[in-house]
Structures are given as C-alpha cells and as structure tokens.
C-alpha cells in the first residue's frame, strides 16, 4: 500500500517537474517572441530617426518627415493636455457605438439571410446596391441626415463595419455543412435550438473574422469622416494639425490611430477566443 502511494507521489513529482520544464521552455519562447517584436519596433523607429535627421531621399523623401524625437516632444505635451484625451475618448465612443450597432445588425441579418431564402431575396437587393458605396461617400449626406455631428460620425463608423460583418455571417451560415442541420433535426431539435446550438456556433469562426475586418474598416471610415467633417476625435486632431502645419502632431495622431486600431483588433481576437473555446486557429485545440 505504502509503496504504491510513494510510487504515485514520485510519479506525480516527476510529472510536475516535467510540466515545470515545459512551462519554463514556454516562457522562454514567449520571452524571445516579445524580445524580437520589441526589437523590430525599435529598428523601425531608429531607421525613421536616422532617415529624417539626415534628410534621406530614397525616392520617398524623409526631408520633411518629423523625427521620432520631435514626435516624442508632442507626446509629452499632449499627455498633459485634456484636449487630446477628450479627442481619443470621442473617437473610442464613436467606434464602439458604431461597431456595436453594426455587429448586432450585421450578425442578426446575416443569420436570417443565410438561413432563409426569402429573407435573402427581400433584404439582399437593396443591401447589395448600398454595399459598394464607400463610407466616405456617405459623409455629405450623413451630415444632412442627422441632427448632431456625433450621430453622423457613429453612422459612418457603422457603415464601415456593417457590410464585412454581414457578408461574413452569411458566408458562415451558408458554408455550414448541411449534415449538421439534418442531424440535429433528426435528433428532434426545434428551430430555436438549431439557431442557438448549430447555426450560431457553426458560423462563429466566420463571424469573428467578419468582426475583425469590420473593426479595421470602421476605424478607416471614422478617421476619414473625422478628417473631413469632424468635430473632435483623433482623425480631427490629425487634420487640425495639418491645417496648422504641425507635422509632429500629425505623426502623433497617426500613431494614436494605429495603436487604438491595434488595441481594438486585439479585443476582438480575445473575444473570439473566449466565445469559441473549441476553435483555435492553426488547428490547435
């Protein structure tokens, strides 16, 4: 009895040691990854610094590009200014409001259209006509259609995100293996169960892809809209800097857009992981 218990304990210990070793190697790998990524960023920034300090002309002219140090001075100034924070806040609000509406409508309509032929016949013709119209082309009309500038901005953001989400959802539903549907029907699932248990999870990978594409396009639309017709926001900030010929601030605005866009894509990715514990890209389960 005792022996066997001891044996088990040693087995467990060796197992834990193995796991610990695995952990260490995983952390080491992770450390390398992070190091390489940081180095890559640093390399880009130092190239930029050298190129703009020495006014390189490589076909692309770095003559007028502000140096990272100049931009850094802008950052230092901006962090203290309440205006910059409020600009970031208005952009984030518009993105999340527009994107949220687009996600709800896009996924909802997408599931309907993908599932029911009639819904597709009714909804798709007008949507197909509206789809090729870029969000930017909506700007003049959006200003006239809404009472406040805020609403028009949210609308433009919505337009940017809506179609990628809609199309990806439809695609996700349509590419679902019909045998899953037949099987669940045979097993006695009602329409609601099919929607919840088969359609939605089945289409989920495609929906998540649609959401991350939609996030990208909604940033693109929002920034353009803010530049052209904005009242506050990061795009507005960048354009204001341009009208005043403040080049370091322009770069700061651009980087802010980049960072915010990256952050929100990361959020989508994480949400996807959380929603689909069974699905890992690259076949890892």
């Amino acid at each position: 009895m005792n022996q066997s218990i001891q044996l088990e304990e040693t087995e467990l210990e060796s197992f834990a040691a193995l796991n610990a070793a695995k952990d260490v190697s995983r952390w080491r790998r992770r450390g390398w990854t992070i190091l390489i990524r940081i180095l890559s960023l640093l390399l880009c920034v130092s190239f930029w610094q050298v190129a703009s300090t020495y006014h390189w002309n490589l076909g692309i002219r770095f003559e007028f590009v502000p140096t990272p140090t100049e931009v850094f001075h802008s950052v230092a100034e901006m962090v203290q200014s309440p205006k910059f924070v409020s600009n970031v806040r208005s952009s984030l609000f518009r993105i999340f409001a527009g994107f949220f509406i687009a996600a709800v409508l896009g996924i909802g309509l997408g599931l309907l259209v993908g599932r029911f032929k009639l819904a597709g016949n009714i909804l798709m013709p007008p949507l197909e006509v509206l789809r090729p119209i870029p969000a930017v082309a909506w700007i003049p009309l959006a200003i006239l259609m809404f009472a406040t500038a805020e609403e028009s901005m949210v609308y433009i953001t919505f337009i940017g995100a809506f179609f990628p989400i809609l199309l990806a959802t439809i695609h996700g539903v349509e590419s679902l293996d019909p045998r899953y549907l037949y099987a669940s029907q045979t097993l006695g699932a009602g329409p609601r169960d099919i929607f919840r248990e088969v359609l939605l999870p089945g289409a989920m990978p495609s929906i998540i892809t649609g959401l991350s594409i939609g996030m990208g396009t909604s940033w693109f639309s929002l920034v353009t809209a803010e530049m052209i017709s904005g009242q506050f926001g990061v795009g507005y900030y960048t354009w204001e800097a341009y009208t005043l010929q403040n080049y370091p601030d322009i770069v700061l605005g651009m980087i802010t857009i980049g960072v915010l866009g990256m952050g929100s894509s990361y959020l989508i990715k994480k949400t996807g992981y959380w929603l689909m514990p069974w699905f890992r890209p690259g076949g890892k389960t």
Partner: protein
Amino acid sequence: MILAAVILLGLQFSGAVNAVWAETIRIGIGTQDATINTVTAGGVVREYKLLEKYLPHDGKYKDVQYDIVWHDFTSGAPINGELLANKLDIGIMADFPSIVGAAAFLKANTGVRTHYIASISGGIHGAGNAIVVPIDSPVQSFSELKGKTISVPFASTAHAALLRAIEDQGWDPEKDVTIVTQAPEVAGSALKSGQIDAHADFVPYGELFPFRGIARKIYDGSETGVTTTHGIQVRSDFAEKYPELVVAYLKATLEANDLFRKDPVKLSEEVEKWTGVNAEVVYAFHGPHGIQTRDFTLKPEFVNAIRTADETLHKLKKTDLRVDVNQFVDDKFIRQAAQEYGLDYDKKLHDYSPVPFEGNAEDTQAPVTDAKRAGQVWVKGEERVRLYSTAEAALQAATKLEKDGASIRVIYVHDRASGNKLFADKAWYVNQNGQLAAFLLKKSAENWVSEKGGSLQTYLEARQAVATASATKGNTENLASNKILNSGRSTE
C-alpha cells in the same frame, strides 16, 4: 548593400530630374478658385491663358518649354503643404495661411523660404470675412454666441478674424466658446442640418451661404476693423532662379484685373462657370463698391495684417519661431511688373478708393452722390446692372420691372453705416417717411431707429411700403389706408 543600392538609385533619379529641368521649367500655381476675390490671380489668368501671353521666349528662356501646372484648393492650408513639398512654386492665399506656411518653411529649415510678393484683393477694414448661423437660428448678433460651438477653417484669415471678434467681446477662446476646424464645403451641410451653432468663413462663403438660403450672416469682418487680404506667395528658390517668370505671372494678374474692371458682369458670369459660385455673389465682390477691393499693391495695412497673423499664430501654436515679416513681404516683383505693364505702383499704393459706380442712376439721370444710399438691380438677360441713387428707388424699380414681366436676378443695397454691399432681400431696413436705410444687422437698424427715428422693417415690408407709396403718389385716400396698414403691421 541594398540600402546603398537604393540610395544610388535615388541619386540617379534626382540627377535625371535635373537634366529635364534644363529644358522644361515647371510653374506650379496653387489657386483657390472658389475664393472668388483671388480669381484675378487664378481662374482668369488660367482660363484666358494670360500667363502664356507674358512668359518670355528669348535670352535665358530661348529654348525653354513651360510646364504650367494649375492646382485648385478650397483653402490655403493644403497649398502650404504642396509649396513645402516643392509640388508648387506659387501659391494664392490670405494673410494668415501665408504666415502659417512661412513658419512651416522656417521649421523645415531647408534653406528655402516663401515670399509674399503681391496683393490680389483685400478689405482694409476686414470686409470679406463673416460669421453666419443656420437660417432658423434665433441668434441675431455675435454676442449671443457665448458658450456655443463655432466652426471655422483653421489657419485661415477668417480664423484670425474670429479670434479677434472673441477678443473684442472679452471672451476666452478656450473656455467661452468651442472652436472647431471645418472646411467651407462641410460647413454648408452642417449649417443646413443645424449641426453647428455658427460658422466663420472667408470670401465668398459669408455671402454665398446667405445667397443660397442656407445661412444668415450675423457678423461682418468689418466690425473688427482688422484688415484681411489675399495675396501671392512664391518659393524663394523659384523666385531667385526665374525672377522674370515671376514678373511675367504678375503682369498676367494685372491684365486679369483690367478685364474685371472693364466688364464685371461678363467676368462674373464666366467665373460662375469655373467655380460654381453664383455670378450675383461674384459681382457683389468685384462690381463697383464691391465688398472687397481688388488691389495689387502691398499696402501698409496689408503688411500689418500679415504681422498680426504672425502674432496670432505665435499665440495659437506656442512656438518660438517668428517670421521676419519685413523679409517675408517683398514688393520688388510687383513693382517691376507694374512698371512693365505701364501702371504707377506708388500712385496705386496710396489709392484707397473703391471701384466707382459708372454712368448715371436710372432714377435721377445723374451720377450717384452717396454710395451708401445707392441700390442696384440686376435683371435677367441684361449685360449691365441697373444703378439707382437710393435703396427705395431700387426697390420701387424692381417692383415695376417685375410687373412688366422682367425677371430679377438680384437687388443690391448698401449698409447705411459701413457702406458694405448687401443682398437687398437679406437686409434690415429703417423707413423714414419713405426713405430707406439698409443694414446687415437688426441691431444696427434698431440703433438707427433710436437715434434718428423711423420704423424698423423687413425686406418684404420695406418693399411693399415703397411700392404702395409710389403707386399712390397724389392719391390721398389710398395713402390713408396705407398708414393704417403700416401701423397695423408695426403692432404685430
């Protein structure tokens, strides 16, 4: 290795460009077509091919090919960017953006600068800039805009005027109002849908928006008394290398100026074709006693406006870089051009008079004696605008012309206090025994009433009053009923 190869390629590329330069000279000109007071340096020169007429083809320029590049913008800010990037050589813009550009050149520190070499048009007292509100806004004067959001194209002359107006009120531009940058074309729709409380802008939007019925003007730049001017800038490297070409271009603008002086109606119609700005609005600026005065000289007031712009920018951007205005403004090219064109620069420099009314007034058959009282009626299909000695004569004539089947394009009257040209149907009136005094602002009309008497009238009321007054001359019975009608209206 790769980097070295790329650099080598870059060098070769720029070498190739240099070789082409020897025979082809690019003249890149950035214009603001819609800002119609600058059209004599932009659109008119381009469309009538006046630059081609004056470009030299002898001596140094014997075998030279000219590559004239015209590029149109809606404000001065992007022109600065293109000048800096050496995509343009000459830029047309107002006092404030020119300083913004000069400061950007200083900052870039490439050894190249810009020079402000001639004026095009200006308002010595600030006419041309304006603040408008949505048409159904209750706001009647600038002082009511406290706490509101005002949009303005940043770094424009209107921006400077707005900041000055705020300063005049004793407000803090950071706290008492919210100022956002907005391009004119966007402001048009924002005003229409009421998304913005007020919008400050430069020529021609202060008149164009009211004329199109999408906004109401509540503030004229002339209330600030701060001079506004549009002028011509050139990159210093271009000017040093090809001074003759700069002079040739300036001569072309002088001829464009002459064309406008000779036939403002025809030119206004032409400008409408290129810019989309209604001929009635163009004429309001370029016609006799127009809102602004075309002027090629660098008057001390204009130079002062540039200096003020430098100070404003300094405050706005909090930079230590200051533009040396004395060096920035350079009159040698325009003096040379005026001399070659046969104009006396110094005489014009001291001449502040507006373009005069020509010919006799229709009603008196005599020249107009008081320009502030004069009125004009533009009948559709006519090649000249009819002139009247007074506002009431113009309104009476309009009624009669319409009765006879004529269609009227626009009626102009003049602000009794400032002399600014107004669209008659957008003005306020004080009626003193049938004599009309016109005003841009309700407030100034009210002041006139309290000082000099008379009754405050809207356009429709004034027009009806003078029309019935003329129709019933000598008919006492009707006159009595008119009085009842008038008193009834004023108690409403």
